[in-house]
């Protein structure tokens, strides 16, 4: 019943066509691509997708300090908006349905301005971007991050308040079970609370490894997603056990996240789907 995709971010600097082939061979329907359209070879990607019989599912946005939706510098805020628009265009060209969105630079944990001001900037940006996405036939998915990666929106209730305030059908809620494992009292209950607003899902275990390699019980989580009548993608954003994820990916890399976790992740979820009689 679910459509499955795997986030290629963790493959690091490996040529994208190799990653796409690996994801397809493991049985996924789609590939989640990193939102760096300026560095992407569109021809290589579309050729690899087509050769392997998979589609582009979603674009994961990378929010660096230069792309900070709530920077106290107006120019940086604008760059962040332009960056997300670029990802929406990229998604539209590839036929991807989702672009992820978080209104702070990743790993920035101290607000620059007051939180009310930052919230207002984030709402204004999301409103503009949701309109833009709607025109392009794409949806934005707001992803709360854990306390070590952001300070503004870390929990489902905050994300839902934000989404309701923007009030656009093109802005959805996104669940990432690693972040939720730090921030939510009950992950499944939070997904249920999001209900029809659930627009994208990242599954990762408590330690950010493939589901099954940590201690989360994914059965109630999968049940809650299914009960929300979710029609989107099940994606896996798995990342190495380090505060400095980029350092690991640029350096020694994370070999177990290639073949072993790519295969284990989808198999783990499919086994639960089958056990719960959801297939």
């Amino acid at each position, binding site marked *: 019943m679910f459509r499955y995709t795997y986030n290629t971010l963790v493959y690091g600097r490996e040529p994208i066509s190799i990653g796409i082939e690996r994801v397809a061979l493991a049985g996924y329907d789609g590939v989640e691509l990193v939102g760096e359209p300026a560095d992407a070879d569109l021809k290589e990607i579309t050729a690899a997708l087509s050769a392997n019989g998979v589609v582009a599912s979603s674009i994961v946005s990378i929010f660096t300090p230069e792309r900070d939706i709530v920077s106290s510098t107006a120019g940086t805020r604008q760059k962040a908006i332009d960056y997300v628009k670029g990802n929406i265009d990229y998604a539209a060209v590839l036929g991807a349905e989702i672009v992820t969105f978080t209104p702070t630079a990743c790993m920035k944990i*101290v607000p620059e301005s007051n939180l009310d001001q930052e919230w207002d900037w984030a709402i204004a940006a999301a409103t503009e971007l949701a309109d833009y996405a709607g025109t392009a036939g794409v949806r934005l998915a707001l992803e709360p991050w854990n306390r070590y990666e952001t300070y503004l929106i870390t929990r489902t209730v905050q994300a839902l308040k934000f989404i309701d305030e923007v009030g656009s059908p093109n802005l959805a809620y996104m669940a990432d079970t690693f972040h939720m494992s730090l921030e939510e009292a*009950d992950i499944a209950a939070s997904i249920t609370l999001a209900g029809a607003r659930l627009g994208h899902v990242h599954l990762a275990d408590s*330690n950010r490894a493939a589901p099954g390699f940590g201690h989360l019980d994914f059965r109630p989580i999968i049940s809650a997603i299914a009960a929300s009548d979710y029609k989107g993608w099940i994606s896996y954003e798995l990342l190495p056990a380090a*505060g400095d994820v980029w350092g690991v990916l640029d350096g020694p890399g994370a070999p177990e996240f290639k073949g072993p976790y790519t295969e284990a992740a989808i198999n783990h979820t499919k086994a639960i789907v089958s056990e719960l009689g959801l297939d």
Partner: protein
Amino acid sequence: MTNVIGNEVGLSTFVLASPFTDNDAASFDRVADMGYDLIEVCIEDPSLLSANWIAEQASRTGLAVSICGAFGPGRDISAADAETREGALHYLKTCVDFAATVGSPHVAGPMYAVTGGPPMRDEAQRVEKRSRAALGLGLVADYAAGFGVRLAIEPLNRFETDLVNTVEQGIELCGLIDRKNVGLLIDTFHMNIEEKNIGDAVRAAGDLVFHVQVSENDRGTPGSGHIPWEEFFLSLQDIGYGGPLVVESFLPTVQEIARAVSLWRPVAASMDELAIDGLAFVRSSLEPSQDWVI
């Protein structure tokens, strides 16, 4: 069952005041009135606290004391430069002096490095840093042994250190230090992020578990989130853990602490509520289940 062994249940001063100072006598009364057995005093600034004062307050209120270190900027026993290492060594010996005077069985905390230090991209660098940590903590352990004080080393999650994240890495560091009075402080908040199986990690550490901090997955009231508590308490039972359990959280209102542990929101209606409900939860978890009553 652990309560028969008589575990003391404590509260961290991080829940009450930060930095904790000689002006915080009322905190001892609050902790005792709530029904705790122990207060965990964090030595943030040794110049603002005196060991004799802590001992007097403890004696006045009938509380036992656990001494815990705070490893902010500069307190880096595994730093590359000798001067910084020397400073951290001096601080840790001061903590041992506190422990000896107040009767704490240990000095606890992530004493192997500065917390939240810059990440090292190279595993060789981490290996070097761990060796320096082992060397320095060996000196502290020898000093502490003279007072009958132990060191309880705390693994922290990946976002707070890249040196010792898992219990397994903690056991390795204990092996490198190789002193009888060196073991681990395990903290459920960090274990939630890093351990594949929390019960297995506790059992792997076994007798090396010198001290325990209980905190929910969001640092809220123990019992209010999704930490596998039953598995955790059963594993403590399995290893025959008889030491203290300290409820730990942090005041989000103190800017320095909020930054250090990335806690930006209240995790309970009030810190008093967290402390009272946390105590009730830990006490009930330590009670023998019906299965155990013969």
